[in-house]
């Protein structure tokens, strides 16, 4: 193992053990490692954004040789960026509404259009095909019931009948109870996924420790 690799390996071992020290609770070692990761990440991201975004997309098109169209586009970006910075100054914060409106409007248009065309319509059509001849009818029914039951659970409309306290109808109430089951399964699956990811990270770190220590 070369010297730089040795240094980085030792540093990696120490940082890993400092993170593992959390099994004793919050302690200075764990906090030191956490702050170090956060600081390094923030610095790295800042440098990355400067070198990958600001300079090549705003500064160089204006300062270096480029076509007038590129300069105009870059100038628009610079103006919008400067206006967005006025959000930091309270008297001039209203000037930042223009780039914020542009970002929000354009982003919403892109996201909504993609969600409708890329998720809602294709997924609805796929759910319908499950009931087609030769389709997976049981899977289709399961998805249908699960979808309706989950939606019923989030239906909070209530009606008062005969002076009784307001409540949901019997059908909606029954579906909402079934929805609880589906929601519980979904959240359980998500939690299992988080736990699996964490376990995988633990396995990778233990492998690193064992491998590194065996190499010394």
């Amino acid at each position, binding site marked *: 193992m070369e010297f730089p690799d040795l240094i980085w390996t030792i540093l990696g071992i120490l940082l890993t053990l400092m993170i*593992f020290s*959390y*099994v*004793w*609770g*919050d*302690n200075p070692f764990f906090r030191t490692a956490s702050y170090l990761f956060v600081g390094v*990440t923030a610095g*790295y*991201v800042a440098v*990355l*954004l400067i070198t*990958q*975004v600001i300079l*090549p*997309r705003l500064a160089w098109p204006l300062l270096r040789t480029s076509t007038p169209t590129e300069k105009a586009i870059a100038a628009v970006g610079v103006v919008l960026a400067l206006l967005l910075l006025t959000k930091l100054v309270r008297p001039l914060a209203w000037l930042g509404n223009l780039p914020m409106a542009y970002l929000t409007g*354009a*982003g919403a248009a*892109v*996201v909504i259009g*993609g*969600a409708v*065309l*890329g*998720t809602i319509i*294709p*997924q609805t*059509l*796929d759910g319908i095909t499950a009931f087609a001849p030769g389709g997976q009818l049981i899977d289709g029914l399961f998805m249908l019931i699960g979808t309706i039951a989950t939606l019923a659970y989030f239906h909070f409309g209530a009606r008062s009948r005969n002076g009784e306290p307001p409540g949901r109808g019997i059908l909606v109430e029954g579906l909402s109870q079934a929805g609880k089951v589906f929601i519980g399964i979904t959240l359980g*699956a*998500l939690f*299992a*996924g*988080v*736990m*699996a*990811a964490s*376990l*995988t*990270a*633990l*396995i*990778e*770190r*233990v*492998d690193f420790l*064992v491998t590194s220590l065996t190499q010394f």
Partner: protein
Amino acid sequence: MTDIRCPICDTLNPPDAEVCSNCGTRLTYLEGDSDFIDPAEAPELPDWLKSYREGDEPEPEEPSESDDWLESLRGAVPSEGMEPEEEEPAGFEPGKPVDWMARLANEPLAARSFTPGEPSGKAPSTPEEPEASQPEAGEGKEQPGEAGFARAFPEPEGLAEQSSAEETEEDSTWLDALRGGPSDEEASPAEEKAPEPEEREGSEEADFAGARVFQMEPDPDSAWSASAGESPEEEAQKNGADIPDWPVEESGEPLPESQPEYEEQPEEPDLAGELEAALPPAVEEEPPALEDTGPLAGIAGVIPGSSAATRFTPPPAYSSRVVVNDKQRLHAALLESLVHEKVAPAPAARERRRSRPAGLGRLIVGLILIAAVLLPRLVGPFASQLALFPPETIHMREAIAGLSGSIPPRVLVVIDYQPAYAPELETAAQGPLLDLLRMNARIAILSTHPAGPVLADRLLDAVENGADAFQPEEELVNLGYLPGGASGLQAFALAPQRVIQSTFDTHRFPWQLPAVSGIETIADFNAVLVLTDSLEGGQAWIEQAGPLLDGTPLLMVASAQAGPLLLPYQQSGQIDGLVSGLVGGGYYSTIQANPDGPALQRLSSYQAGLIVILGITLLGSLAQLAGSRSKSTRSTGV
């Protein structure tokens, strides 16, 4: 003879009536002429009064200042203040001063006597301040203290137009009193001590006051006379003024009713009194009041704040009771109980004493987990062979294998995960990446996360060990970070060359490099492999780039958390292949027939760790259940 019309109230009275039957106004003087009084029968008058009758007083060459207001009265009273009379009284001609008025105006004040019985608390008239004590004819209806000052000055013409019945009635009252004359008790001392007229002439003010005595006979019952408590003589002596003898004589010897000549004598001032009565009450312009409170204290002419403040009353108090029915009261009680439960301070839980930094339980769990993960290294792999492969993984394998037809295939690898998920995704992605490298695919790495470019280097470093033929210099390009989220992603899908202008490490224009040369749109890639740790990241590529792929396979390697959520997209055909988590990587390695794959190497540790986690979770749940049951048993005592 015709009936006599009262000039005041217009009442017709018999011809022989001396006073008005309605208002008591004396009528004989108004009706009679100057010869009505028989001088032979007239009583002995004082010399100064005789001089008035004989008219030997000097006529003023020019009207004095005091004549001005008399002139104004003459001009104002008949036309404005009173009803026009059918017959002008004798001796009174419009525009011509009345004799007695002229005499009074020209008579020095010193020749007039002082009126006894000045109001208490008011300083007697002195030569230094004559105006303050000058009473005026017709003032009998006023308070003595208010008499002199305002009446001593001529009234403006515009104000001499008021005459009311009440004032006339009061005039008749004091006229009646004058007819009867003062009582003997009051008059006798004055008669004894009355100075001679010659002596009085030296005091102008006292003389003027004496004229008032003739006009205003004090009411014996009034407080004006009674409050003095002394005889007029004593009062006069005390005040330093002389009392003329003529009023004393007049009061000392009451004339009978049959002596009209004497009774007519007061008629001259009587007319003046009526004229004065026609005048509006003197509008005394009060000096501006000084503010005595507040920040403007001591400043004159401001709106008095204290008086204004006293006009305000405290706000009315209304009842706060709300009329509610039983149902509303029930709801209110329910709401109150709910709020009380929320805001009621719960007893502070007794802090447990912790002798250890983090607790023994957490330490034990951690050690058990680490031991479980290390167990396969100690006892060897014990994971069962994966046999049932999920369809998405099979599709992934088939899609990658189908790239071998295009040589060399150009694949876009997207890094869309955080460093925390790097171990999982690197393990899961090593199988597909190894296949790509083995077929000498041209790899373009694009990151939608800032840390992506570094993670990509780390990923390829790990994969290159299994692909000896891979030439990174020619077959790999790192396009760096793509900002803008979904918008940037869509822009890249439409025109990659306009969005990415330089490589991450060499800062060269990438689109002339062998790995990505000829790429105009995202559809020019032979495959797109997305490594994501979240549903949102995978959805963004599916929604924004999916419609533009135009048949290009979209493959995904997702974390175990995002894999189940992305599975419907694979089932609907929007994703051509999916590898989910470490287990998915193990399946792929199994299909790949790569037993040395990291996924399979770690699969035993993964299973051991999952068993430990499930066991600890189960034991913890049972312990919690047992603890709660024992607590309920203790609380119920059963």
